[in-house]
């Protein structure tokens, strides 16, 4: 297997903001790769560098071995990008939009593939409708279609399901999964962590322009194996304060290593006379891994983590 995407030490500064601060990562061909991070972590900037929409200050990026600046034609031919913003050209119909996008890649007579795309994205009935008349979800589908007109081996989706209804989300993932099975490499950024958990094989987490974690989903989950208690109470026993992962008003998320630890927590609550309003026990999921990594990276030593995690 060869390398689909290779990012080496990419940095990019916008004014006083260091959007990317030495990011390195590699995605192999055929992977379903997740790129996670809070808003402003640099996910979209990294995608823009890959797509040639933004130039890196330092570092290099390659798509299937083609440098995104030096060999941009081959790099862009290999890449399909679904942008985050819901953009469209109001002058054209859905079919015209897809035909024109094919044409930009030098592709003529793309009718059969466009028909297939329209079918998979459930757009057949809208093929001759003007882009302006489509709903937000429909426009999102056309954006996905536009990214696929040239059958790119590498597909990048920048939060494709933001603001999309459940039904479309399901059908979209079915289609993306099929593309992945057919050999396309998929890179996905999303805010829905359960989505990344369900789809991605390997995940990179970004924070403040740095890679703070980069591993397979299984390793990430087992690295933080354990349980989380969701507790609604006035306060948390003093000894348990350090184990609070996150606090949401009166709701505390407390990390446990095993079920046995629960007894200790209940004992401490009883000793300090804290009443329990609500208590729930949850298995570790990606969201908790994400929260733990983000809060750890927020503390000192973030840089060390990033360097260690990046390959």
């Amino acid at each position, binding site marked *: 297997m060869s390398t689909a995407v290779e990012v080496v030490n990419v940095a990019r500064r916008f004014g006083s903001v260091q959007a990317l601060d030495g990011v390195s990562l590699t995605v192999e061909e055929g992977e379903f790769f997740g790129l996670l991070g809070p808003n402003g972590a640099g996910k979209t900037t990294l995608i823009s560098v890959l*797509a*040639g*929409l*933004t*130039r890196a200050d330092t570092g290099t990026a390659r798509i299937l071995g083609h440098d995104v600046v030096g060999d*941009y*034609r*081959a*790099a*862009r*031919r290999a*890449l399909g*990008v679904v*942008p985050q*913003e819901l*953009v*469209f*050209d*109001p*002058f*054209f119909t859905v079919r015209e939009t897809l035909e*024109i*996008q*094919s*044409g*930009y*890649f*030098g*592709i*003529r*007579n*793309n009718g*059969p*593939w466009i028909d297939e795309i329209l079918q998979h994205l459930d757009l057949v009935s809208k093929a001759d409708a003007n882009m302006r008349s489509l709903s937000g979800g429909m426009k999102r589908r056309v954006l996905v279609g*536009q990214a696929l007109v*040239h*059958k790119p081996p590498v597909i990048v989706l920048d939060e494709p399901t933001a603001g999309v209804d459940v039904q479309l989300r399901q059908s979209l993932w079915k289609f993306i999964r099929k593309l992945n099975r057919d050999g396309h490499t998929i890179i996905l950024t999303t805010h829905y962590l359960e989505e990344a958990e369900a789809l991605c094989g390997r995940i990179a987490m970004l924070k403040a322009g740095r890679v703070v974690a980069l591993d397979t989903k299984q390793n990430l989950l087992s690295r933080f194996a354990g349980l989380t208690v969701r507790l609604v109470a006035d306060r948390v026993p003093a000894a348990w304060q350090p184990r609070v992962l996150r606090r949401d008003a009166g709701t505390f998320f407390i990390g446990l290593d095993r079920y046995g630890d629960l007894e200790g927590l209940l004992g401490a609550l009883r000793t300090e006379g804290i009443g329990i309003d609500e208590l729930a026990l949850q298995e570790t999921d990606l969201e908790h891994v994400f929260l733990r990594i983000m809060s750890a990276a927020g503390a000192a030593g973030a840089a060390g983590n990033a360097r260690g995690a990046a390959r």
Partner: protein
Amino acid sequence: MTRIAGAGWLTLLYKELLRFWKVSFQTILAPVLTALLYLLIFSHVLEANVSVFGGKVPYTAFLVPGLVMMSVLQNAFANTSSSLMQSKMNGNLIFILLPPLSPLELFGAYVLGAMVRGLVVGLGVFAVTVFFAPSLLAMPHPFWALAFALLGSAILGSLGLVAAIWADKFDQISAFQNFIIVPLTFLSGVFYSIHSLPPFWQGLSRFNPFFYMIDGFRYGFFGLSDVPPAGSLAIVAGCAFLLSLLTLAILRSGWKLRN
């Protein structure tokens, strides 16, 4: 599915043509009507009072090529500037930035689109104004006129591209248009021969590249001009060449487009 390497720019050119064609009421008919109004008013007011080229040419006949060229220039500018600006503002410029189109291909497609728009509007203006001066149909030097129309529209198409790359909002585009393009075209001899101006203004006009475009274009219709046409052609071709280099350099640098 047929992949033709390097054919992407033809689609961009096609899209540029389709864009203005789909709103031709506004992009073709409106400027033709404006030019017709200019002709009706100015020729009515000035025909008896203004003498051009030593009285060898009636004023209305003199005015028609000026209006044609003015429309060619203004519409070439309007096409690139509004197309790129709309794409920037709507965010759909990304559809052009993602494919493997080179700076030269982007430049070629946008500027050719602008030239076609300029020439189509110019032909439209000529078609409705020539009734007022049928003698113009006997053009002694049509290829001179064509050369100036092509170079002039290329220059304004490039300028429109630069203006739209530079501008962050529509306001700045209309400032560029109203404070630079319109004054330079109006003061270039569309409505008068510069020999009718006082010496100072005549001298100043010679620094206006638009003057050479209009004067050279007019030569194609009358075999008469304020300055020798070969010199004008050299100046206009030089401007077109330099501006093309500048525009290409800007596109290559990615300034404001791939920041």
